[in-house]
């Protein structure tokens, strides 16, 4: 299994990682090894095996719709690199949120 440098560059861009050319080369070979290792599994015949959605043999774990205490704003913000006591502060983002 070999990945192309373009594939690795794309994955790096999606992960917001900036790689130098020599790093890209190293990453491409190392990632190829990892993916190659995992692709050994493709040798198994899975014709009669149901797809697995979750490794745990558990289903339907719910909680009731009952409020529980939230953190205080100070606690919530304490690990943020920057905040104004009310909000998390981040460098201006003008693009559309990809949310939902």
């Amino acid at each position, binding site marked *: 299994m070999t990945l192309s440098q373009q594939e690795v560059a794309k994955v790096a861009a999606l992960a917001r990682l900036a790689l130098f050319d020599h790093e890209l080369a190293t990453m491409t070979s190392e990632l190829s090894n990892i993916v190659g290792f995992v692709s050994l599994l493709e040798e198994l015949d899975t014709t009669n095996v149901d797809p697995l959605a979750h490794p745990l043999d558990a*289903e339907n774990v719910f*909680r009731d719709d009952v409020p*529980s205490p939230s953190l205080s704003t100070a606690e919530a913000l304490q690990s943020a690199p920057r905040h104004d006591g009310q909000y998390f502060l981040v460098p201006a983002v003008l693009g*559309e949120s990809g949310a939902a």
Partner: protein
Amino acid sequence: MNASTSETQVPFTTIIGLEVHVQLQTLTKLFCGCSTAFGAPPNTQVCPVCLGLPGSLPVMNQRAFRLALKAALALDCNIASFTKWDRKNYFYPDLPKGYQISQFDLPFSTDGTLEVIDPKGTIGPCRVGIVRVHLEEDAGKSMHDETAGSGDTRIDLNRAGTPLCEIVTQPDLRSPQEARLWLNELKLLLVYLGVSDCNMQEGSLRVDANVNLHIPQPDGRIAKTPIVEIKNMNSFRSVERALVYETTRQWGVWQETHAEMGKTPKQTRGWDDPAGVTRAQRHKEESSDYRYFPEPDLVPVTVSSAQQAAVRSEMGEPPVRVRKGLETRWKISAYDADVLVNQGRQLVDYFEELATLIGDGKIASNWLQQDVLRTLNERGGTIEDFPVRPAALAELIARVNAGDFDTSRAREIFSEMLASGRSAADAVLSMGIAVIGDDELVALCRDILAANPKIVADVKGGKEQAAAGLIGHAKKKNPNINPGKVRTICIDLIRAMQ
């Protein structure tokens, strides 16, 4: 091709599909116990789970799942017996985990429909297919402070993790008007079932629209313009306006460029409501590559047919059935039933109580639409807090029916009841309105006839409308007279003279 809305003849068919997100009516978030109440100070409804702190684990809110299931069943969807959640990966500051927990390949419901019939009959019935309904979490809120010129974006994560139901339609809508009508029906349905309050101002209902044009070519081929996704519409009216604008814009672009779908990537445009235009939004690089994979922190959910039946049994009546019920039980028109149903379940309950008390749906509907709704529109407030309760209004209407006073007098009494909270009888007393006995009224009519021989002669000569002149005279003698009664008595008396 479908040309259902052929009012305005255009050389193309508009193809519209919608993606609707509604906030489910839960007390807490989808995966943690933080409150979902709107309007709290920033970052006061957050915890390690919705902040995405390391080591925290999500647990599914049972009520959120049941509400989503209710929505899917009401939309006639097929419910999957097995469903799971997936991570949708992207980076944005209001998404603390770096992924949104959503559903990708095994949503819990697919293939539904919702039909809507325009009560005014101007738009044909439109039956819209539902591709899927799934359950996912919301992101937080980003605020860009453009005025202060500060380089910061402020993030409030109170909304992060709020349960959302995503409803994706087939591209079955054929005009902006249809889209608005259909959205209104969807909203009504979800509000009636208690799935969501669908408050667009508070972001409980959000709509994105996909639109393009199908243009028949001389050679019989159908040319399709590139699909545009419109975002940022804050009301159903905005949705309609944005779609009208976008349809015209695409037609203009087509005439210039003949650019077809597939040759350019799908474009996202934002609706600028004050300017009344859509604007191209910055293309998100590789935005479609969300690298979904199964959410390992949540176990799958199974739904048995018994559970479906249980949710169905607690579902309540959808608006389409409420309308039909009002039409058949109370013999009111489809249009009137629609007006009442559009005002919500509580107004329908008020109407049915009133109609039962007075035994007449048509009169009850008229009073509600002309007086109660008008008052609510002027004063604001809800029907639950409306000071004149059905029993009090029924008493007033009964007096009108008995001929004690005419409708305009009854309106004055109604205003007094509104202002004072009095019953009809007490309002009549406090206003000094004395109900005139029939004998007294006949005597009064005789006096007027004697004093107005010219009018009497006119009526005798066949001009019955001249009797209207008598009413003014009667009112001068006694302001409490019922004009309709005076008219009838006078005409009867004149006839008897002949």
